[in-house]
């Protein structure tokens, strides 16, 4: 990657879910970040921190509360650019305009079984995507489907299989085949390898890597597994309670994490190395506070080992500490 093109730019993207009795879940707070074309962009954090909400809000599966998602992947007839020459603000599109962009922007979910129709063969599940979105002749659709099956490491014979005849890893391959059928540019992978066994997870990661190289696909890779992110992603966004803590190239983040939450998260990962258990370890105490009543100031201050007086009063801004390394913490102000 010599010159990097931004494919997607999030500007102060916010998502609140109103729930009963006037309560509001603060799922995303003003997320601003740019994602480059062809990169494997990782998003990590503990459950409930807003990873899935972010992925879905980008794809406009959830309407954002405020903010913008500028997509630079293509121009649309009749839509005036939001930004620069060819940016489109996804949040401003009408449903039929967004439908055109759906071909560019796809999602693969965690549970491969739940996303497939048990009464449909693998072949017709994939063919359906062509049926809805293209005017290919039936023979062309079938041929394209067979090619896709091979591309994702399945056999042509699997065309006639039903989901219950497939393993979890094979089902996930079908999910990937569907997502890449229309040659998208941007794919959200929401815990797409998390439910798989380690050996199958490794197979799927290798497949995703090959597709990224071959098609210059951009991945928005959501996971809670730091080992996978380190191995797979070019850059990583660390989230806590709907906020960005840290954003950095993968290599930098794992070598020198700065945000106290990132440090705690990395500390907590169990390593396949036998160590002295009598030794006192740093353990992050407490639990994530409720997103309905997030704490004032820094969202992490209730658990932070480096908390200062200021932390409960003022929310730290996201600042660029060194090139490409962003941190939201008063320690680095």
């Amino acid at each position, binding site marked *: 990657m010599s010159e990097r093109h931004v494919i997607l730019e999030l500007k102060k993207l916010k998502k609140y879910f109103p729930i009963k009795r006037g309560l509001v879940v603060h799922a995303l707070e003003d997320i601003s970040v740019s994602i480059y074309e062809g990169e494997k962009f990782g998003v990590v954090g503990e459950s409930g921190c807003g990873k899935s909400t972010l992925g879905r809000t980008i794809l406009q599966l959830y309407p954002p509360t405020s903010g913008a998602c500028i997509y630079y992947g293509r121009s649309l007839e009749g839509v005036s650019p939001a930004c620069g020459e060819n940016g489109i603000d996804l949040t401003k599109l009408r449903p039929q305009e967004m439908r055109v962009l759906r071909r560019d922007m796809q999602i693969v979910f965690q549970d491969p079984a739940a996303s497939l129709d048990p009464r449909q063969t693998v072949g017709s599940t994939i063919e359906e995507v062509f049926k809805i979105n293209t005017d290919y002749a039936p023979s062309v659709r079938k041929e394209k489907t067979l090619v896709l099956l091979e591309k994702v490491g399945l056999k042509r014979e699997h065309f006639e299989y039903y989901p219950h005849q497939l393993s979890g890893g094979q089902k996930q391959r079908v999910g990937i085949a569907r997502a890449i059928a229309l040659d998208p540019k941007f794919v959200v992978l929401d815990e797409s390898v998390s439910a798989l066994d380690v050996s199958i997870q490794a197979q799927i*990661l290798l497949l995703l890597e090959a597709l990224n190289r071959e098609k210059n696909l951009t991945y928005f890779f959501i996971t809670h597994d730091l080992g996978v992110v380190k191995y797979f992603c070019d850059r990583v966004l660390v989230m806590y309670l709907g906020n960005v803590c840290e954003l950095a190239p993968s290599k930098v983040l794992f070598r020198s994490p700065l945000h106290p939450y990132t440090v705690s998260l990395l500390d907590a990962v169990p390593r*396949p190395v036998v160590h002295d258990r009598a030794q006192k370890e740093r353990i992050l105490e407490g639990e994530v506070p409720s997103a309905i009543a997030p704490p004032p100031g820094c969202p992490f201050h209730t658990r932070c080992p480096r908390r200062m007086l200021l932390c409960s009063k003022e929310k730290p801004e996201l600042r660029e500490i060194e090139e490409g390394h962003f941190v939201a913490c008063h320690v680095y102000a």
Partner: protein
Amino acid sequence: MEKILEVKDLVTTFRIAKREYPVLRGISFDIHRRETVCMVGESGCGKSVTALSIMDLLPVNAHVASGSIVLDGQELTTLSHRARNALRGEKAGMIFQEPMTALNPLLTIGYQLTEGLRYHKRLDSKTARELAVQYLKKVGVANPVERLKQFPFQLSGGLRQRIMIALVMSLQPSLIIADEPTTALDVTIQKQVLALLNALKKDMDAGILFITHDLGVVAEIADRVVVLYSGMKVEEGPVEAIIGAPRHPYTQGLLHAVPNVDAEDFVIQAIPGTLPHVTEEIRGCRFHPRCPYATERCRQETPVEIEFVPGHRVACWNVKESAR
């Protein structure tokens, strides 16, 4: 150290489409008092079935077909279900991945914690309540008296798992089986629970069978490790040997397939293929279709387990040959 559990040649079968298929194909291992044995292997290899066989909690279409399970000197396989029911909780306690499946959603934490103490230990309500509070403190639950009044759904996953641990511990069983107890938890909460279990070990007089698929968790908690593949034990040894110098190609494969957060340029190596289905008969070593070292002998004969060095057992033709 005294043996708490001796499992020998355990065969458990499932009835599928009117035929019996072995899911455990002759598994043997021991657990000593105050020892944590981790059982690892891919999904479907038989870890939970092993646990359920020991607890007599198998589904209706499954049963122990042969072999023996001796708990605290008592043979279990010849006992009636009723007798085994009475041992559950008191002699052997179980912690599940999702504590909601074990906790009754309609009863308070206090009721559930004291019920076992009143029934098994024949304590009066007041003493049982005091003991329950003590155990909640032991597992690091803040405001234990308040918690007794709450229902399971009012608590976080981490807290529910702590309560489950208190519940099982309070009956002082000889054996505790924990089936993926931290898998559903976030890493920071998992770390808290693993540290808690390690700290409690000194307090307990039990042996622990800890089931997990995460070799990082194994390194945190195990004394010894049993590796299962497709219903067979393929390797067993001290945690240092299994994590540091595994001998079986399957164990080695598991270690190389998981991206390591500390490695600088980790190269992921997928184990090709998938675990065979239980109904699938495979001649020779059951791992041979996926094994990079398979030879003609592997395709013909089932490998015999050897004790590679004392305490470290491997069932692989290749290991025997290289050791000679």
